[in-house]
Every structure is written in C-alpha cells, then in structure tokens.
C-alpha cells in the first residue's frame, strides 16, 4: 500500500498538467456537439449553454485548495465564465492592479456587446453590426494599450459610418444613440483604469484559501469513486470508454507475459547449462540483437512483409477482427488468434532477452552452489540436476521479475496498439492526444501508473513468498551490490 501517496502525487501532477493545457475545454465540447450548430445562431442561448457546460465540467470552481497570487489579481476571477476573457482580465489586473475599475470596464464592454447582439438578434441586418461585434470580441481579448486604443478607433469609425448609410430608419437611430452612449462609457472606464493603475500592487504576494469547493478536490473525489469525468469529444463518461480498452490491453499484456516466460525460461536454462559453449553464445547473441531491435520497426516490417502490405498476405494487418454472433467458439478463437499473432511477436521479443538473461544468470548462480555439486556427486544424471534441483531455485527470483516485465508490457502497448490498430488503452491514449481530449489522457496516465504500481506490488509479494528471509515490514533500505 506504499504506493498510495505516490498515486496521489501523480494525480496532483497530472491534474496540474491538465489545468495548464492550452485551449478552452468548454469551447472544444461545444464545437464537438452537433446541437451547438443550432445554438451558434442564437447568442443568448449559446451563452447559457456555455455556462451550463462549464458548470457540468466543474470548471466554475477555483483550481486548488489555495492559490498563490499577486495582490493585483482578484481571487474571485474564476467565476467569470469565458476562459479567454478571464485570461485577458487577469493580465489587465496584473498590469494595472485596480480590480474594481477593471471589473467596471469589463461589464461596460459586455453590456455594449449585448446591445449589439440584441440588435442583430432582433433582425437588423447591417454588415456594420457584424463588424462591430467582431471588433468588440477582439477588444475583450486584448490587453495592451496600443491594441485597445486601435480597436476603440475602429469601433468609433464603424459606429459613425452607420449613421450616414442607414439614417432613414428612425427606430435604428435611437438604438444607435444608445450604442454610442454605452461606447462612451466603455472608453471612459478604460481611461479610468489607465489613470488609477497601480502597478506596485503586483509585487505583493497573497495566498487565497478556497476550501474544499475546488476543481482538484472535486476531480479526485470523483475519480476515487470511479467517475473519471466526461470525454470532451462525445460527452460520454470516460470510465465507460476506458474500461473496455483497459481490458484489451490487460488481456494482451498478460498473454504476452505468459508467452515470454514460457519461451525465455527454457532458453535461459539451456544457455546456462551449456555455458561458454557455442549454443550459449548463439542464444546470447541472438537475444542481445533482439533486445536492441526497436519494436515499432519490427512491427512495421512485419506488416509490410507478412500482412498484406507489399508481399505476403499471411496475417491480417490491423485490428482484432470482427466477432459476430453467428460464429462458433472455435471460429471466434481462430479469428482472434490470427489477428493476435503478429502483435504478440512484437510484444514478446523485447522482454525475452531481458528475462532469458536473468534466467541464465540465476541458473549459473545456482549451478555453482555446493548442493548441486553434491547432487552430481551422488551420480544423478545431468537432466535431473538441471530440472529438479537447480531449476526450481532459480525460477523463484525470475517470477518476481513480473514487477519489471509487466510495466514493460504496459509501456510497450502504446506504440504497438497504434501500429496494429488494436483498440486498447494505448491507442485510446494516442487518439486522445491528437484530439486533445484531456480527461481521457489523464485517466490513462493514472491508470497506467496504477497498473504499474500493482505490478510492483505483486512483484514484492511474490518476492516475500519466494524467499522467507525477506519480510515486507523491513524498513531499512536494502543496498544491493548491483
């Protein structure tokens, strides 16, 4: 259970990575949502949907239990809905330090924008209004004086150019006066900021405490109860997506591990028995070569040459095959097996070298022991000495190496699943990276850490079981001569 604090630390790291990622997740989700195509037309509805989603994702809370910030920046900033505006206001506050006047400025701009939008929504068709809206949007994300003044001038020009072309409409004229008025307000508020700005404030540190109502707390408590959030792409819960994928990865990894042991143990025993002879050096050299072969290269080559790439078509190149209900069990097994052969080869061979080498070392160690000499002196045949006397003793430490092999399999699964298009955790991870689907990315990171931790734990337990001289309770660091 020693890895629980480690898992917490990893959760902290992954959480802060996910917070510092670029882009606005709410925007991503809105863009991925088909209904939003309808929503986009109506500004007020869209705004409401944005706020609803933000609340659903829990993004309307402070990030952590406490935050270290400058005095210049308000501690209630996180309540503002739109991320780009929030970032911009934070920067403004950072430079000018007078939060009250900045807030007033922001509200005046938002009010001005809402006036324009309600005009557009009420059916006034003027290109100028659209241009105006665009300029205001730009204004909301600009923070240096040059840019802001430039947009002010632009807006002024547009506002007054409407006058000359559309003054036949009396109704619009009244609106236009209102627009002009509120824009006066905007400019006024901005110059107040400039006048009152105190840049000294940003040099004073403050710590804000936010209590338990924060994003991390919510995220980790949900995560522990099995709710890993929702995918940004299709809104499905991450846990339901990830479980099916983890099963595939686990299945293949365990199968590969089993195969690795099955092949490497006889190889290791054989080369230990023939130590220094031709067979030993042949096995060692081959395994060493295999160890250095990049598995993504071998996978590419295997697909190109054996799986309907350029030459032979012995194996299907991609996926795990289609399993239909009409298939008999035998057919299902053969279908899956055919798809699994090439991936399994690539999964197994890198670990093979490592394990066989350990097995060989362990066997040689045991074969040098006194009791083996005794066994030989007794006149037991070599086969008996090898398999029933030494093998068992050498086997136990090898089994504990699961702690190293299992994480190797999990890590290796990323590349191989991508190449062979196997719908496992690694493939999911890669696809999420390409689509910047952070809830899934970090769920996978947590999961792989968890699985690796389990691997180490199993290794430790087996170690204790294999060697009664070692107990888990021992606290002193063991220094090995390695």
């Amino acid at each position, binding site marked *: 259970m020693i890895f629980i604090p*480690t898992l917490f630390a990893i959760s902290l790291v992954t959480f802060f990575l996910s917070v510092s990622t*670029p882009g606005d997740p709410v925007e991503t989700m809105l863009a991925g949502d088909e209904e939003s195509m309808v929503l986009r037309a109506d500004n007020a509805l869209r705004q409401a949907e944005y706020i609803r989603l933000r609340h659903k994702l829990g993004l309307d809370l402070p990030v952590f239990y406490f935050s270290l910030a400058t005095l210049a920046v308000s501690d209630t900033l996180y309540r503002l809905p739109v991320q780009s505006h929030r970032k911009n206001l934070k920067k403004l506050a950072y430079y000018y330090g007078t939060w009250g006047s900045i807030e007033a400025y922001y509200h005046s701009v938002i009010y001005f924008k809402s006036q324009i939008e309600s005009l557009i929504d009420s059916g006034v068709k003027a290109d100028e209004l659209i241009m105006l809206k665009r300029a205001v949007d730009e204004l909301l994300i600009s923070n240096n004086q040059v840019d802001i003044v430039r947009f002010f001038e632009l807006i002024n020009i547009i506002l007054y150019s409407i006058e000359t072309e559309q003054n036949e409409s009396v109704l619009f004229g009244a609106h236009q006066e209102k627009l002009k008025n509120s824009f006066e307000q905007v400019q006024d508020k901005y110059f107040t900021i400039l006048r009152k700005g105190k840049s000294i404030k940003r040099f004073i*540190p403050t*710590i804000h405490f936010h209590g338990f109502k924060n994003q991390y707390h919510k995220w980790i408590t949900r995560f522990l109860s099995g709710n890993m959030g929702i995918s940004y792409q299709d809104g499905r819960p991450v846990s339901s997506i990830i479980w099916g994928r983890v099963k595939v990865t686990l299945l293949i990894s365990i199968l590969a591990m089993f195969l690795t042991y099955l092949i490497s143990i006889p190889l290791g025993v054989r080369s230990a028995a023939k130590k220094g002879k031709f067979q030993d050096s042949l096995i060692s050299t081959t395994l060493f070569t295999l160890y250095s072969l990049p598995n993504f290269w071998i996978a590419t080559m295997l697909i*190109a040459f054996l799986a309907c790439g350029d030459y032979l078509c012995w194996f299907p190149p991609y996926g795990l095959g289609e399993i239909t209900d009409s298939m008999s069990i035998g057919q299902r097994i053969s279908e899956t097996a055919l798809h699994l052969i090439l991936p399994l080869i690539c999964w197994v061979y890198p670990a093979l070298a490592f394990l066989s080498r350990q097995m060989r070392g362990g066997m040689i160690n045991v074969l040098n022991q006194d009791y083996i000499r005794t066994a030989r002196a007794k006149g037991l045949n070599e086969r008996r000495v090898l398999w029933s006397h030494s093998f068992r003793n050498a086997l136990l430490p090898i089994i504990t190496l699961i702690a190293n092999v299992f994480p190797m399999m999990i890590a290796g699964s*990323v590349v191989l699943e991508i190449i062979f298009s196997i719908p496992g955790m690694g493939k999911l991870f890669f696809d999420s*990276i390409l689509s910047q689907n952070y809830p899934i990315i970090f769920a996978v*990171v947590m999961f792989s*850490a968890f699985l690796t931790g389990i691997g180490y734990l199993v290794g430790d337990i087996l170690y204790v079981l294999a060697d009664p001289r070692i107990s888990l309770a021992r606290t002193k660091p063991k220094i*090995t001569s390695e």
Partner: protein
Amino acid sequence: MSGMKDKKKTRKKLFSRNRVLTRFRRNKLALMGAYFILVLTLIALLADFIAYDKPIIAKFDDHLTSPIMLKYGVALGISEWPEGYHDVQWKEIEYDFAIWPLVRYMPYELDYNNVHSVGPWETQSIKSNWWRHWLGTDELGRDTLSGLIHGTRIALSVGIIAMAFAMLIGLFFGGLAGFYGDDKFKLSRARLFSNLVFFLIALFYAFVLRQYALADALANSIISFLGQLLLSILIFLMIMLAANLLALPLKKIPVLSKKITIPMDLIISRIIELFVTVPTLIFIMALVTIAKPSIFLVMVVIGLTSWTGIARFVRAELLKTRTLEYIEAAKALGFSSSRMFFHHALPNSISPVIISLAFGIAVAILIESTLSFLGIGITETVTWGSLLAAARSTTGAWWLALFPGIAIFLTVTMFNLIGDGLTDAFDPRSGR
C-alpha cells in the same frame, strides 16, 4: 617534495584509467561500437558536406565560390549573399567545374521528377548516376539517404544532450539521497522555518510575478524560454540564499536552534518512485501535448524522465561508500562535507554513471525515434523516426522501412555494446 608526490599521484591515476581503457580495448565488440559511434559523430558533424543541395566548391561565370560556406556565413551573420545569388538555381546552371557532396539533395527537398516513392534499383529520372537517389525517395520525392545522414544529427544530439541533462539531475538527487541518507541532513528549526516561508516568497517572485514573461517566451521559442527560466531560477536561488542568511541570527534563539533531521533518502526515493511508476513513454507523450513540440522540448522531456536510473546508482553507491573506512577517516580528519563529497565519495560512484549513460543514450535515441515515428515529437526536420513513419503510409516502399530501421537498430546496438564493454571494463572482478 610535494611536487614529486603530485607526480606520483597523477601517474597512479593514469595507471588506473589506463587499466579500464585496456580492458575496454580488449573487448572487440565494444571497440567496434566505439568506432561506429565515432564514424556516426563524424557523419553528423559533416552532414552538410555529405548531403547538400548546393556544390561544396564551384566555378561558374569565372567566379570560384563555395556555396555551402557562403550559406554558413549568412546563417552566422558574418557575410551576406553576393549580388544575384539569391535566385541561383544551383542544380540547373552550367559549371566550369564543381565539387558536389556525395548526395546532392537536402532531406526536405522535393524532387518533382521522382515522386511517388521511387526505389533504389528502379529507374529514376535523373541526369546521371551522380544524381541518383541511392536509397530511393518517398511519396513526395524526398531523398531517403539524405534524410538518414541529416537525421544522424538529431538522433545523436537528442541522445547526448538528453542524457547530459538526465545526468545532472540524477547526480544531484542521487548525491543528496546517498550522501545524507536518512539521518545526516540536519537543520536548525530556524533554518527550516525561514526556508519554508521564503520558499513561498521565492516561488512568488520567481514564477508567479514573472508568469507573463515566461509564458510569452515559451510561445516565442524554447531558447528564449530557457533564458527567462534561468532568470527565474536565479531570482529563486537568491531569495533562498537570503532565507538561509536570515536563519543565521535567528539560530541564536534557543528555541529555534534545535536541530531537526530531514530524511533526505526517503524523500528522494519517493520522488524517484513517482517517476518510475508512470511509464516513460506515456508520461513523455502527455508532456509533449502541452507545449509546442520541438527538438529542445523532446531533449528536455527525455532528460526529465530518465534521470532516475542514474540517481539510483549514485544513491546506492554513496550509501555503500559512506560506511567505508576511508570516509570515516576523512571525517575524523575534519574534512568539510563538500570536500568529502566531491573528492572522495563522488569519484567512486562515477563508473556506474558512465555505464548507465551509454545505455541511457541508446534508450533516449529509441524514445526520440518512437515519438517522431508517431508524429508527435520533432516535427520541424526529417528524423529517422519520421522516415520510418513514411513507410507506413506508402505501401510497397520497403526501402523507407528498412534503412531508417537499420540506422536506429545499429546505433542503439552499438551504444548497448559500449555499455556492456564499459560494465566489464570497470568491473575489476571480470577476468577478461
């Protein structure tokens, strides 16, 4: 007298170093690896003179020039292109004579006459065999051999720089953990307290206050970011130094002067565990998504994730040596702890570090090529991994899969052989 002593000392040192070298030389495979890497380094350094789209030396219109050197001059800001050289079609003009590089293409250069992946032995539409694509082209008509030659630079530099970075971190943490162990790092309460408080303040002035300077630099380029980061770290260190100076007078107060033991080894072992638990490739891929991918990012990230092995070796070695008699003797003689660390403890742990550097470079090269192969690592230039990735989208182009793979394989194997050789050479028990 002392001069003679010194001479003896150096001779002794040389002798032991020589012994390691002789043992290394006797290992044929390791020696082969070393020579291979040497050749590879030469290729990387001279890549522009082996594969380039301009002649090395050329004479035309009665001018004798060296376009490559001119290019270097311009890149370094020493010289400018002479009048009318901007639009010279180096491959079209008639030369009085010209010495071309072995391969007359740049890795990113599109040869429109040989698109859709032409194989090495297929007929290529070229002027003469001098213009041949010796290892074929890819879908866009880019030369594979040129990509391999220039990719050497990326592979070696990523491997070496990432591991240098990893070594610094590993030595630091491993050194701290191993040298102090769980019981030797003692602080007075005053110092601990002032360090904790000033840590927050330092964090604020170094990073929170400078957040926009840092973010802007990161958006600009990774080099300017490193500059800004260095400045931030300097500010941080200055404030922490102030904290420790402040602790000196505070220590006079009896309550605050009590010593507290910090279990350095435990803390650092936990940090190492943290890094080991997340599979490296997954961690790197997650990190790469956050910042803009570039060579430096890949180097830094690989370095950040592969220091744990070195740290563990150094820790284990130091924990072992600190109980040895000569360290006890040094302690009894009243040597300062920094002297004991740098003169006595560290040199002893250097051999496992060198060994794991050799293996580490191999792993770093593998990781880099994997990332490029997946298309999420270095995207600005052609690398071995990206060449291999091209093979996946082009059916029938075996040369795109074979040659980059061999390059990666050979390089990784040779570094592994060197590592093996070093292990044997440093091990006095190995009879060979």
